[in-house]
């Protein structure tokens, strides 16, 4: 396979060389702009890694945050996650804040590609659910609101 590729390249090279007379006057290209890179301009909230210890939770619940989290939940999460232990598309949320550490949950919400690539627990879940946890375009702040709502769901007062 590799030899054939080399051969083709060789032939192409020969072709170019032999007929370079035909290419007279061809302007050499200016440094190539990476067009592909430009599409990364939009604030995709996806892919922001939260490191262990970066976020500290207080023992008591922030009611305002939990309320905001509830609203985000209804719009962007509820379709797949129940507030009970029942698994719908994804796992139910009851007990999630006891079962998982908050950094893990945050990364699942806003950095799911990394998690599915490297985290064994996340990979185990994908095997069970068979639907990739989608990017729901959630910011870091919104994700913290969601966690607060999860804590409320788990009885934190």
């Amino acid at each position, binding site marked *: 396979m590799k030899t054939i590729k080399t051969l083709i390249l060789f032939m192409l090279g020969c*072709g170019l060389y032999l007929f370079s007379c035909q290419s007279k006057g061809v302007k050499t290209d200016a440094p190539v702009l990476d067009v592909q890179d430009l599409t990364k301009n939009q604030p995709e909230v996806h892919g922001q890694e939260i490191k262990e210890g970066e976020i500290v939770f207080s023992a008591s619940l922030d009611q305002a945050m939990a309320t905001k989290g509830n609203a985000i939940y209804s719009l962007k999460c509820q379709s797949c996650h129940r507030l009970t232990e029942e698994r719908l598309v994804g796992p139910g949320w009851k007990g999630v804040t006891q079962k998982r550490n908050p950094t893990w949950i945050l990364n699942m919400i806003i950095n799911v590609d990394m998690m599915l690539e490297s985290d064994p627990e996340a990979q185990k879940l994908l095997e069970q659910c068979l639907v990739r946890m989608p990017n729901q375009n959630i910011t870091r702040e919104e994700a913290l609101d969601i966690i607060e709502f999860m804590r409320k769901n788990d009885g934190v007062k």
Partner: protein
Amino acid sequence: MSTILMTLILITFIACKPRGIQQAISADAAGKVYVAPGKYDEFYNFVSGGFSGQMSVYGIPSGRLFRVIPVFSVDPEKGYGYSEETKPMLNTSHGFVPWDDLHHIALSVTNGIHDGRWVFGNGNNTPRVARIDLKTFRTVEIIEIPNSGGNHSSPFITENSEYVVAGTRFSIPMDDTNGDVPINTYKQNFRGTVSFIKIDPASGNMNIAFQILLPGVNFDLSRAGKGKSHGWFFFSCYNSERANTLLEVNSSQKDKDFILCVNWKKAEEYVAQGKGKKQVVKYAHNMYDEKKHMATSIMEKEVLVLDPKDLADMVYFMPCPKSPHGCDTDPTGEFIVGSGKLAAIIPVFSFTKIQKAIADKTYDGDYEGIPVLKYESVLHGEVLKPGLGPLHTEFDDNGNAYTSMFVSSEVVKWNIQSLQVLDRVPTYYSVGHLSVPGGPTKKPWGKYMIAYNKITKDRFLPTGPELAQSAQLYDISGDKMKLILDFPTIGEPHYAEAIPAELVSKNSVKIYKIEENQNPWVAKGDDFARVERKGNEVHVYMTSIRSHFVPDNIEGVRLGDVVYFHVTNLEQDWDVPHGFAVKGANNAELLIMPGETQTLMWKPDRVGVFPMYCTDFCSALHQEMQGYIRVSVPGSNVPISFSTGNTTPVQ
């Protein structure tokens, strides 16, 4: 693998001995058009679909088709013209018109250079102009043109996107007159118009600023002046004989027809002075709101008309040999190239000379009261023996022009200053328009030229009597034009513009934010998913996410009801649309982008249980994304009910 190898060897060797059709193919063609898997093309090519009514988007140099944007024709695949939200886009003063003939493309410009904001297209048959937003590649506005019969000379654009124009191909009795006249009273009763449609610089919204009332000729093509000729517009016209039958013969009698020169800055002055006359007409103006994901259509009731008979110094006719078609201004704005499709030469006019002839009143009489400039006084020169049937001219960044020759199926490269023919290359076959990236602007990007052919005959694997039309890509970076690729196209690739990819791709929207969705029928989350009865209408507010609908079991619909499925896609991930279809619907599907709401109307035709499902492969469990809707007899007492995940059996 070995086949590729052989082909390569073959190409390499054939190139040594140019013969017949292979003559035009250069040895390094494959390398020049090869865009590696996963890599982006250098240019977007916006290609009109002609009689398909749509606009297609290709990559250059690969010739890969990326998208067909529905514009003037319904598109069941995308629900365009079928969903309740998009139906108003195709409304006209004649009612809902599901098809048109999209001929020309105009990309928006700032200071005469592509800015990548919008692309405009014309509807030829039921005169309209459409605007597509290049952030979403969606048709966001369509405006109908009154006093027009065939909007061919459109939507060419001025150098700061001040206006796009619309010149009528068919002259007709004006809309506010009694049109019930014998056709052979053409000369008395039929008139032509050119319309100037103002573009709002911030929103892009279109409004017909004014129309100019003109003699009953056929307006064909046009180009705005630029640079020194900014403020002027040039329209080619034929049928100065004003024939109304067998135009093939009867409109080819005269040696010369005209290019109309319009001083639109002067027209603006007249408008400002209140010199226009308001005429009562009727035309539709349709707008798509990308926050509401919904179109509205309003019927406009008047248009401002300027009559050159009362308003001097606004329009002039310039003689142009034999039924001119193309009428193209060069990047400097000094030269206007007329292409007399029946002429044996290409006349090139000088804007400086036009100005002098006007100042000196070097007229050759008048045509229907409009001064005719003396041909010799405005002529820069003629390209002699260019080929047969010159149609259209585009320009590169080195002072050269490229003219398509329909009859002799070739492209001729010539120098604008010296008028010398520099090169010619065959096309396969019967070339119409050409496109050089940036060719109609002040700054041609050059490098490639694409020819759009009407006939392909033996170029591709045969597909019965109906064959694809095609585009052919030429490398024009050297002295010689080199054919490097053929690619088939949709409909008729009538005209196209190409723009460097980065000017558009960086603004391309990935998702509609669900938080910003203002559709009146949105369900922002499952808490809002519901079914409501309003008389004999049943409204289903449904959400979709990988991979289920809420609700997915619906009962209580009765035969005779009209059901509206308002489906909101709750996904917020790039490239995760959901589809929606229901069995037996005399309608299309919906294709709903992330964060969008679209509505499908369904009138059940019988009692029973109807499946519905997601049509766009969305996940591993896509095949599970389905539901049922039960239709009962008229007057049935089955209550409206809906659920998802309810597995309790009926008691």
